[in-house]
């Protein structure tokens, strides 16, 4: 900020900011009274039970009949254990049939899942509709004209539906309300930089740097380093502690040996943090640069060079496909084929194609001719510059739209989520 802040000017600015803020918000609150920073979550309770597969009885009975040649089925492989939702009809059936049985002495896992509801009005609506539904479902039903069986069936369905509805709870969430306050203050902290650099901004900026560095590192750790590196080096440990769903590898030894290379490279790369032996980090860097260069070389030649030249050379005379005219239809009927659509010379399209080619060629001439920009080359290059100027002008227009949208997004957060004066 190089603005030469003169005192009176600053005061005026602050006064306008405050007046604008207070007036705007009072008007807003007048039309939309309601609490600030309210947040709701819908809570569902998940229950999982550990069950194990029971070998089918007929299978077990059939085994001895196969004769002594069949491998004896012993308890050498423990039955597969899985956590299931016992309310799932398929699981319920299996438990009844006895193909699954609950593992004794293992407590059920019970926890709440809180899903935020993005706007408070919706949340309140949903609260009301859930209440309604529950009321409707708990009302006694009429059994006239139904057999006992039909009635029972319906009752069972009703109870199940009621259970589902009652399990959905919508509650206000102080944790998220506090979060909205924090987010709003941090947002204002960044925006305060517009007035001038200040300690509040600096604090917020420091938080951003710290949090984002840690966040990115964690994302890389959990999403790549654990499943792609650690899981190959110590699959059983990773399966037991972090990634129980990890598939069994066909050849763990080979995986392990192959993973040693990236592990070594990773350690060498991290050597950069050491005060000495900086050259060690150059090896993994060589892999990175080499791979990158190799990938880029073929990709850009194909997608950005050849394909673009082909696209620039599209047929200069453009035709528009038009519905077949009467003569074509008559001819086609005579020949017994489908009428072929007609073509019409498209003046605008042709002009556009020619202009497009001129643009590509002239801009390239501007870029590439290391000759002095004089004479014909200079004139062509000048046309190229014009094309570039139009290109950049359009890019500027689109950039404005992009940047403004980002600010609109922040204002929506401040006015909507936090102050609750819009939507």
């Amino acid at each position, binding site marked *: 900020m190089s603005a030469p802040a003169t005192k009176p000017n600053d005061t005026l600015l602050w006064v306008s900011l405050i007046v604008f803020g207070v007036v705007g918000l009072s008007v807003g609150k007048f039309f939309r009274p309601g609490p600030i920073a309210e947040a709701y979550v819908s809570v569902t309770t998940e229950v*999982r039970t*550990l069950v194990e597969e029971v070998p089918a009885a007929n299978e077990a009975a059939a085994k001895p009949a196969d004769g002594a040649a069949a491998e004896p089925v012993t308890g050498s492989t423990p039955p597969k254990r899985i956590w299931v939702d016992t309310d799932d009809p398929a699981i319920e059936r299996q438990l009844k049939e006895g193909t699954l049985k609950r593992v004794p002495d293992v407590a059920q896992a019970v*926890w709440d899942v809180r899903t935020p509801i993005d706007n408070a009005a919706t949340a309140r609506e949903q609260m009301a509709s859930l209440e309604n539904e529950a009321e409707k479902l708990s009302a006694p039903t009429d059994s006239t004209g139904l057999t006992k069986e039909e009635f029972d069936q319906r009752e069972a369905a009703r109870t199940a539906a009621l259970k589902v509805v009652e399990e959905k709870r919508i509650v206000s969430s102080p944790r*998220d309300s506090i*979060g909205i306050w924090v*987010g709003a203050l941090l*947002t204002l902290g960044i*925006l305060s930089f517009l007035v001038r650099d200040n300690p509040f901004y600096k604090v*917020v900026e*420091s938080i951003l*740097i*710290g949090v984002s*560095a*840690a966040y990115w590192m964690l994302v890389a*750790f959990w*999403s*790549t380093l654990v499943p*792609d*590196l650690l899981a190959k080096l110590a699959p059983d440990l990773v399966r037991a*502690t972090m990634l129980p*769903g990890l598939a069994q590898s066909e050849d763990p030894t080979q995986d392990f040996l192959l993973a040693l290379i990236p592990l070594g490279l*990773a350690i060498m790369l*991290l050597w950069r943090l050491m005060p000495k032996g900086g*050259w060690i980090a*150059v*090896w993994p860097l*060589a*892999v*990175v640069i080499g*791979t*990158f*260069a*190799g990938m*880029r*070389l*073929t990709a*850009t*030649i194909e*997608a950005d*060079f050849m394909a*673009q*030249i082909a696209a620039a050379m599209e047929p200069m005379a453009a035709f528009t496909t038009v519905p077949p005219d009467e003569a074509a239809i008559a001819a086609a009927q005579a020949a017994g084929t489908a009428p072929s659509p007609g073509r019409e010379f498209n003046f605008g399209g042709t002009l*556009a194609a020619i*202009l497009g080619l001129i*643009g*590509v060629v*002239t801009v390239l001439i501007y*870029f*590439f001719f290391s000759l002095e920009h004089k004479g014909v080359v200079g004139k062509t290059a000048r046309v190229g510059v*014009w094309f570039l*100027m*139009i290109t950049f*002008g*359009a890019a500027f*227009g689109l950039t*404005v*739209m992009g*940047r403004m949208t980002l*600010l609109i997004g*922040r204002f929506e957060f401040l006015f909507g989520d936090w102050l609750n004066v819009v939507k």
Partner: protein
Amino acid sequence: MLQRTIPMLILSASGLILILAYFSPVTVVWSDTVVGWFNILAGVAFVLGAGNLLAVNLEKISARRPGWAYAAITLASFGAMLVVGLGKWGAVPNPSFPDVHLAGDQDSTQSAYGWVYEYVLSPLTATMFAMLAFYVASAAFRAFRAKNIESILLLGTAFIILLAQVAAGAFLTNWIPEDRWYSFVRAEQLKEIILNVFQTSGMRAILIGIALGTAATSLRLILGIDRSALSKG
């Protein structure tokens, strides 16, 4: 040898494997292996970045450089985030494996990590970029001067796009019929022409230029002509 030649060979080998795989499907397995390492190293780079940040800020604090208190704030938020994120504090259990805590999902605001993401990281990053809206406006006022034919072309195009991208364009030019030879001056058609003819060809030429430049640089690196990339040590 260890410092220059071997890295050079590694670079060339990995680059050549990638190029070879483009022409011969047999070697795709090799190239995929190398790319797999590349992806892992990209992940390690995040760790390296965090480590660097740590080193810089620790140095700042220990030397009591100006602004060391801010460095302490950075470190504190870094540390706090790291602890909650590695331990998955408050993570929602994984429905298939509720008994393995670290298999849980910590991306919802229910967990500490998700909360920090939603209410600290996300608003901060978003606002940082939203500031550009103010700067772009200031630049429009100060730097966009119609001084010669080039800048007039730039300005004129920007004007048309700015109008045509919002309802103002339609409002100004909707009275022009849609199917006459002059209907191209309707804002939305003018915008299409600018984008599809002028901007596309301008950007296409730039793309072609960049592609040639990239290809040349890549080749120089792989063939060992340009060794500057590896000279750090």
